[in-house]
């Protein structure tokens, strides 16, 4: 039995108008995402990765092509940006709660749900902290919690760990893996890290330099749950080499 795709992208392309005929950011992008898929877009900077996510989030309109959603309904979206993008005037609790407030969930209910989410991302004891007092990793965890709190159909991650140091980043992979497993979301993530994409994703789509085109669609058949050791297996190495070759 095949599940219906939650997201279908067909022949998408984007041209930003500029003085010499337009900047071609994305070209002929087509792919599908099934429910609970974890898809990574891997590409060098300037391959239009962020542009693609902004289109999926309806922050930007494509120049050509179509995007179809399951039941023709725009999905609820949770988005995590490169910077944690927390509101400095809101406590950790209130930052995570924001999407529920926007949906009009009553305060008692919202606080209860937020507390659950705080437990899930391991931020107990920091409910009332201000964002300025958080480390980069903690701030990004708050951002992930905020993106998940309203139970979105689609989670969009825009290089969420790019601003973190290497150690924290690897710890966050484990965290994200665990959270994704607990919440069973469809995730589309963009990154320029081969290790990150292999560690997290079911499928890695490699984008070329501008204009971004899909060069390789690699199925990541590494067993789950994945832990640190998996990165030192021969199979991981083989997949990493494939991706590396596709990028170059």
């Amino acid at each position, binding site marked *: 039995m095949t599940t219906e795709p939650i997201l279908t992208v067909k022949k998408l392309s984007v041209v930003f108008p500029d003085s010499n005929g337009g900047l071609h950011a994305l070209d002929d992008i087509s792919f599908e995402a099934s429910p609970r898929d974890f898809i990574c877009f891997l590409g060098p900077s300037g391959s239009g990765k962020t542009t693609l996510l902004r289109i999926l989030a309806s922050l930007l309109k494509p120049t050509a092509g179509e995007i179809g959603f399951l039941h023709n309904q725009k999905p609820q979206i949770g988005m995590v940006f490169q910077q944690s993008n927390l509101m*400095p005037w809101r406590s950790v609790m209130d930052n995570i709660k924001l999407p529920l407030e926007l949906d009009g969930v009553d305060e008692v209910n919202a606080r209860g749900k937020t507390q659950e989410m705080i437990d899930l991302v391991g931020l107990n004891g920091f409910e009332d902290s201000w964002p300025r007092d958080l480390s980069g990793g903690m701030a990004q965890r708050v951002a992930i919690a905020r993106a998940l709190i*309203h139970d979105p159909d689609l989670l969009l991650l825009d290089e969420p760990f790019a601003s973190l140091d290497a150690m924290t980043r690897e710890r966050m992979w484990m965290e994200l893996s665990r959270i994704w497993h607990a919440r069973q979301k469809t995730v589309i993530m963009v990154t320029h890290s081969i290790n990150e994409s292999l560690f997290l994703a079911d499928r890695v789509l490699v984008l070329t330099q501008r204009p971004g085109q899909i060069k390789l669609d690699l199925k990541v058949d590494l067993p789950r749950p994945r832990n640190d050791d998996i990165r030192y297996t021969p199979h991981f190495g083989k997949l990493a080499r494939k991706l590396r070759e596709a990028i170059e």
Partner: protein
Amino acid sequence: MNNNLLRTFHPSTAKRNRTWLRLLSLGLGLACWQVTSVFSGMEVFILPPPLAVWSRLVVAVQDGSLFRDIGVTLSEVVLGLIVGVTFATVLGYSVAKSRALEQVLSPYLVASQAIPIVAIAPLLVLWFGYGMFSKVLICALIVFFPVLINTIVGIRAVPQAFYDLMDSLRATRRQILLKVEIPAALPIFLGGLRIGATLSVIGAVVGELVGSKYGLGNLINRARVGYDMPMVYVAVFMLIFLALGLYGIVARVEKKLLRWQEQK
């Protein structure tokens, strides 16, 4: 009180020391003034000693005349603030959101700032009478500009990333205004309000000096004509307290609303 006991000893003593220093400085200043006016041989109506000012204050408080003038000036200042801030905030937000509107309005806004309020105060009093209305108008005009500019700057400084976040969550215009724009612009806006509050006192006095029935500015004129110099000083000090009080209220509101900004 209990809280103070729980705190470490050091910060509270430091704070107490600062308070003492401030009182000491004030006391020294007053003493210098007293000594100068007594020993310089200046006439009392040129430089009355602080004690004479104090006893004049006590008399004015006892016969109640002072409160009427304070009440009038305070009402003008507060009403002017409310009117000025309301118009400045609404217009500032619209200008911040629309470059076209900014192009249309900016010549007028800049020109309005080029006219010193002191120069048009006589005209306004002539047009709108000796009552409170003309003073409220002057206060509103003088408050308008700093609040307008700070509203524009504050709204324009809201990071695009917050708009992206709100759009990805499909927030409404109203939700964006309430949950992003207002809190994000608040620090800069309150800075404008703080300037506006003290300017409003100046506006009221200028208006009252030009022509009025009551108010502290009017009291200065009356006392001066009657060679009651201690009373002039009483009025001036009342104005200082008024401005300080308003400034203090805004600063306190700021501190409460901007807790998230406080440095440790």
